[in-house]
């Protein structure tokens, strides 16, 4: 048995392949946070007055809040004054309007990450909004989206050009004082994506954002707001990475989704922030608030996440199922290795009648990592005939890691049907033996079993991401399979 474990462990050692640093000139604020910094930030971004008020309100509230400590995480205290709250690649006087104007160094960085923007424009048919440190560098495919009326742009641009939409929906799902990290984000967010899908429009392509933290000592606070108007549909992809650094970097994002009547949003994330080295040095603190508001009847939201990176993940993509017959889904694979910690899960708040939710969570814990599922299913008294199915499985690889399952179920309506199942086990000797006996090597067998374990989630990912996710999983766990 222990021989087998050693073998698996030896396969776990792999390098972080996105850990390069791009040398570019950047405008970076001095570290520190106070009302002046926020005013300066708002000014640099050329924001209307209401945004400054919004940010200051959030900042004042944030100062009164304690950092949350209820998660199953060990977090070293964070010095919020040691972080720079704005870092932008030095731009020419005006923001770039086409790919030709983008700094070739940045384009090269994205190429290394496997998202050549130029190529994608022609081949993949995915519109990419790339966020480099704090500002959006390029948004591809703008023209084509414009034809059908879809707005897909950096949120800073939306604040200037579509203030009425931003005013109506920003913080309508995650209020400025919702939690410690959301309040911080509201005060200092620098950029992010904004999407508006008009009535009855099925977005002709998948929208995608790529986040990358490049500069050291900066935090990334991006804000995403997606509005799917009545009868519309959009599939949105998000990927993340960061260079290898010894110090921890903070990433506190907020994502808000608003789904109106008969609309649907599919939101997929592959998160591969730098996880820190084998001794747990460095790595990203990924403290993210994601929430979808199924406002209209028959609306639907689907979260799919593959979390392989970050030193610490604190993330609970949630669904508020307000509209009658609305549907919320959560599919998650969370992999932790070495000294990574993840406390992640979802909240399904059933408010409307005949609302349905599904939660499939797969946690894989290896090395000395701690992996926690934490979720809430709440059925309010008005939510007639609500239905929830939850399955959380944990896989342990090695005897130094931990896997924890903390579901909360609160039901106030007798017509609700709730099923929750959870299991924790290791890769069974029998399964390994069966594969090896049929000629597979131990590592191929492990890879196959782990992929099978995650299959329910991977099949929810869009094609491009499914391939990337499997590759990432391989990277995180098996090393040089095959």
């Amino acid at each position, binding site marked *: 048995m222990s021989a087998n474990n050693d073998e698996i462990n030896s396969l776990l050692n792999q390098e972080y392949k996105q850990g390069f640093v791009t040398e570019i000139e950047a405008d970076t604020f001095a570290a520190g946070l106070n009302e002046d910094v926020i005013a300066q930030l708002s000014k640099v971004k050329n924001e209307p007055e209401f945004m400054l008020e919004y940010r200051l309100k959030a900042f004042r509230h944030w100062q009164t809040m304690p950092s949350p400590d209820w998660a199953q995480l060990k977090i070293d205290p964070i010095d919020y004054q040691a972080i720079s709250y704005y870092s932008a690649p030095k731009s020419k006087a005006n923001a770039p309007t086409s790919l030709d104007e983008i700094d070739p160094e940045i384009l090269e960085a994205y190429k290394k990450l496997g998202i050549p923007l130029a190529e994608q424009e022609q081949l993949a048919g995915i519109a990419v909004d790339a966020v480099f440190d704090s500002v959006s560098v390029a948004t591809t495919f703008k023209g084509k989206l414009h034809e059908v009326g879809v707005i897909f742009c950096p949120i800073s641009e939306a604040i200037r050009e579509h203030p009425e939409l931003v005013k109506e929906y920003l913080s309508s799902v995650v209020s400025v004082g919702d939690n410690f990290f959301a309040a911080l984000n509201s005060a200092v967010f620098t950029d992010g994506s904004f999407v508006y899908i008009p009535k009855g429009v099925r977005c002709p392509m998948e929208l995608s954002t790529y986040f990358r933290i490049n500069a050291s000592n900066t935090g990334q606070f991006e804000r995403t707001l997606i509005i799917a108007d009545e009868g519309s549909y959009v599939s949105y992809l998000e990927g993340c990475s960061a260079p290898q650094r010894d110090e921890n970097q903070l990433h506190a994002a907020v994502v808000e989704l608003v789904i109106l009547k008969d609309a649907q949003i599919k939101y997929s994330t592959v998160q591969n922030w730098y996880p820190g080295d084998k001794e747990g040095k460095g790595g990203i603190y990924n403290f993210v608030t994601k929430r979808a508001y199924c406002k209209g009847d028959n609306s639907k939201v689907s979260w799919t996440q593959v979390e392989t990176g970050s030193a610490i993940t604190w993330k609970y993509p949630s669904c508020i199922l307000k509209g009658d017959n609305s549907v919320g889904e959560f599919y998650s694979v969370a992999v932790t290795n070495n000294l990574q910690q993840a406390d992640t899960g979802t909240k399904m708040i059933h408010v409307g009648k005949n609302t349905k939710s599904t939660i499939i969570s797969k946690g894989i814990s290896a090395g000395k990592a701690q992996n926690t599922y934490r979720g809430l299913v709440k059925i309010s008294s008005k939510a007639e005939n609500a239905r929830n199915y939850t399955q959380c499985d944990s896989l342990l690889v090695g005897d130094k890691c931990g*896997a924890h399952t903390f579901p909360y*179920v609160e039901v106030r309506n007798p017509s609700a049907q709730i099923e929750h199942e959870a299991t924790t086990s290791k890769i069974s000797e029998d399964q390994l033996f069966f594969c090896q006996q049929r000629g597979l090597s131990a590592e191929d067998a492990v890879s196959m079993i782990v992929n099978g374990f995650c299959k329910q989630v991977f099949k929810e990912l869009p094609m491009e991401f499914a391939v990337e996710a499997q590759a990432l999983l391989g990277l995180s766990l098996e090393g040089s399979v095959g």
Partner: protein
Amino acid sequence: MSISWLDDFRQHAKTQFEQTGFPSNRLEDWRYTNVSAMAKKEFPLATMASSPVFEGSKGGSAFHFVLVDGFFNAELSNLPKTITVCSINDAIKNHADLLQSKFNQAITQTHGFIDFNTANFTDGLFIHIAENGVLDKPLQIIHVATQAAILPTRHVVILEKNAKATLIETFSSSENNAYLTNSVAEIFVGENADLTVYKVQQESETAYHFGGNYVQQADNARFTHHNFALGSVLARTDIVCDLATAAECELNGLYLGSQKQHLDNFTRIKHLQPNGISREFYKGILNDRARGVFQGRIVVAEDAQRTDSKMNNRNLLLSNEAEIDTKPQLEIYADDVKCAHGVTIGQLDEKSIFYLQSRGIDEATAKHILTFAFANEMVDKIAIPSLRESVFNLLLTQFPEGAER
């Protein structure tokens, strides 16, 4: 008479309680249960009743240990001759060394109710079964409340190697008044020893109840607990078990809430050593404005390889105002384990209702029968026929329509 070692415990607990008071629902383990209304009642401590109105039942199929308002009543009791069973106040005098070596040792994590108990307990049961000893009949601990007061009792139960015993603990009142039961039991199950505990909680409908069992299981020790939470306006049961190598733990529970009852069941099973087995099965039926809470936590420590653990919680809600909050948790630090938990909340099976209807039973009756059967599954697990029958009869009073056939 003042005993210095005990006074130290009491003093420490008193200081602790003065600082924290009864648990606040800001604490994670108490998030669904708010005891502030109870704390505001400021019940006095019970005093020894002059003439208990309770009739003891001598002889029969069980031994009896009777606590009236938290004080041992020897006249009403019927104790075994060959095994050490006495009040804890007697044990302080006659079994001081043994008691001192065990007292407070099973409690690994404390809270306001336990601190209050340690500081103020008036009496309780002490039982010590020597190596290979067997208690040949079940021992029934009968709590009777007559006063509007706090009734703190403390039990210490020690089973040495290979010992075997069955305890039945019942809580009831002679008057229909408000009071607070605060009962803490420390239980030590020795190597290969076997203990079964039945708890039948039928406090008055305005009473408050806290009952905690804190169990230390040695290698190969077996502990089985059956919890029937039926009475009181607000009741909380704690069952906390620490398991050594190859120890086995089985926890069963049934909570039936109606009117404005609030029934909280908190369990924590901690596997500290390899090869342990635990099984947990709790069922709840909530009617009217009742609220049920199930909190089950299974912890598997780093050394506890090859642990096999299963937890299941099933609930029926019968009214629009009833509520269930359930929190099954797995906290696992070892890899070679088989752990699972499951929760369901829902209604009776449509097909079963249809089946009964197709046999000529109207829908309402069919539902009653199935609800009764849902609860009766837990009653069927009682191994003592007379107890099974009396709990069955209690169930009948809750669901009279259910047993028409």
